[in-house]
Structure formats: C-alpha cells, structure tokens
C-alpha cells in the first residue's frame, strides 16, 4: 500500500496512518491480495500487467481489503455488503451467482438490424457500431443499448425528425434507434451529426 493511499483515507475518515497500517497489514488479508497479484501477473505476464481487466480485479480486492480493515468500517461491515449481496454462505453464492449469470446471458439475446444507409451515415459521422455488444461508439463517448421488458431487438434506421420540438440545426439527416417488441417499435434515441436526443433531452455530442 502506498503512503498516499493511506493519507487519502486519513483525510476522508480521520484515521491515523498508524491505525490504518496496523489494520491493513493483517496477515490473512495480505495473503489474499498477494496470491491474487502473483497469479494474475503470471497469467498475463509482466508486460501486460497494466491490463485493465487485471487492474479491475485488483481494484475490487484492494477496495474490499481497505474497507474491511478500516476501523471506521470494521470487519463486520463486510457483513453489510453481504446483506446487500443477499447471500450468507460462500458455497451457495458461487453456485447461485453462476446460475444467475447464465440465465442473464441467455435472456439478453436480442436481434439487431441496421439499414445500410444508416450504417454509412453513422460511419461518416465518426461512429462505430459494435453489433454483438450493442454499442455505438465514437471518440467523444458511446451509447450502450440495453433491452429489457418486452423488447426483443434493436433496429437502426435513417429517419425524419419533428423539428417543431427540437431544433436540429443544419442537420437534415437523423438516425433513429428503435426498440422492437410485440406491440410495435418505439423510438428512443435520435442521433444527428452534432447532437443526440435521449429521453426527450437534447445533448451536444461534443459537450463535456
């Protein structure tokens, strides 16, 4: 653990670095963390140890470790997280979450279609389409399309827009992203070259 990390905790929670070091140096926790670090680095290699996925795994561990070790959030606080988690047994959690994950992945299969004209227009405007993961990506940001409820798919088309509600400036072409369900299509997202309209709110694509 770096000094700066402890300093940050100290500032936020009023805990002395000495207290924090004492708690965080518990042997069991160190074993947990070091074992994970060694295995993952040996897996991806030294050159790829900056791999984001590895960092995410280690970040979760470091966060939980500090959370459990902080006097202000004593170890029983992990029990609070377990309650949030809705679980009580380590064996059942592994089994249950595995089944739930499989069900979720199964349930998320949706159809996706995009008109060639819409694909060309989005490409011209600097968007990439990740059909498998339902992501419309650009340098400024990305849209994730999550279907739920009755929706069985996503359809992207070139369309017109009622400018009486929103001014779209010089943008005459618009892209409509529609959900598909048993009751018909519903337009949810409008994209033009410089802006997008989400949930009835207009956003400039280039604003921070």
């Amino acid at each position, binding site marked *: 653990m770096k000094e700066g990390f402890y300093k*940050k905790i100290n500032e936020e929670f009023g805990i002395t670095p000495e207290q924090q070091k004492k708690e965080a140096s518990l042997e069991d*926790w160190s074993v*947990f963390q070091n*074992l*994970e670090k060694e*295995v*993952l680095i040996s*897996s*991806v290699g030294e050159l*790829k140890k900056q*791999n*984001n*996925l590895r*960092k*995410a*795994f*280690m*970040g979760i*561990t*470091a*966060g*939980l*470790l*500090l959370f*459990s070790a902080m006097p202000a959030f004593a170890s029983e606080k*992990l029990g*609070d*997280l*377990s309650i*949030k*988690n*809705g*679980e009580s047994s*380590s*064996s059942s*959690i*592994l089994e249950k*979450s595995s089944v739930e*994950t499989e069900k*979720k*992945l199964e349930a*998320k299969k949706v159809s996706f279609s995009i008109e060639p004209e819409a694909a060309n227009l989005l490409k011209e405007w600097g968007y990439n389409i990740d059909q*498998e993961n339902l992501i419309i990506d650009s340098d*400024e940001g*990305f*849209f*994730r*399309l*999550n*279907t*739920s409820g009755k*929706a069985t798919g996503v359809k992207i088309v070139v369309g017109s827009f009622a400018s009486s509600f929103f001014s779209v400036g010089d943008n005459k072409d618009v892209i409509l*992203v529609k*959900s598909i*369900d048993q009751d018909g299509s*519903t*337009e*949810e*997202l409008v994209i033009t070259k410089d802006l997008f309209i989400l949930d009835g709110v207009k956003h400039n694509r280039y604003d*921070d």
Partner: protein
Amino acid sequence: MGLNITVMMIKRNNYTKNGLRELIVASSLSDSEKNLWFYFIDNIILKKEEVVAMLKTLQVNDNTLNFLTKNLQDKITAMKNNDKLVWQEIIQVEKKYLESNS
C-alpha cells in the same frame, strides 16, 4: 416514449465514480446487484486508475459486468469468512477469464 430499451451515453472523459455509477444504472443487472455496486462505489476508496480500469473494462460488454459482479460478490463472501479455499477458486476463475480475454 416507451421503456423497452435503455440507452445511455457515456462521455469519454467521464472516468469517475459517477461514470461508473451511470454505467451500472444503465446496465441490465438486477436491483440487488445494482445496490451492491452502489454501496461499493459509495463506500470504498478507489484509486483513479482503478476506476478508469473498471470503466474501460465494463464498457466492453455486459458479460464482463456480470463477471465482475459475481467476482465482487464472491470476494465479499470469501473475505468475510476468511475462506482461503474459496479465494483460491475465485482467483483461478479470474485467471481463466483474463486469459480468454487477453
């Protein structure tokens, strides 16, 4: 406006805890799974680089979010019970996932 599709836009530079929260909100996780993440995000100190890594990883697809959610759940339980055997199992699962996604 119907509610059958959720769309979210995440700005490239929104690599903050709030960005992480937005991503969880727009995800297909269950309410209890989302609450677990919110509790984690709100109560646990993460380094900036860890938040960035999580966001970049989670942007890839929902499978990764589901995997990290399970990872978070399992680690909480293992740590709470001081269960090194479960911990080793978690790490082996992480290793496999990492290798298949590198």
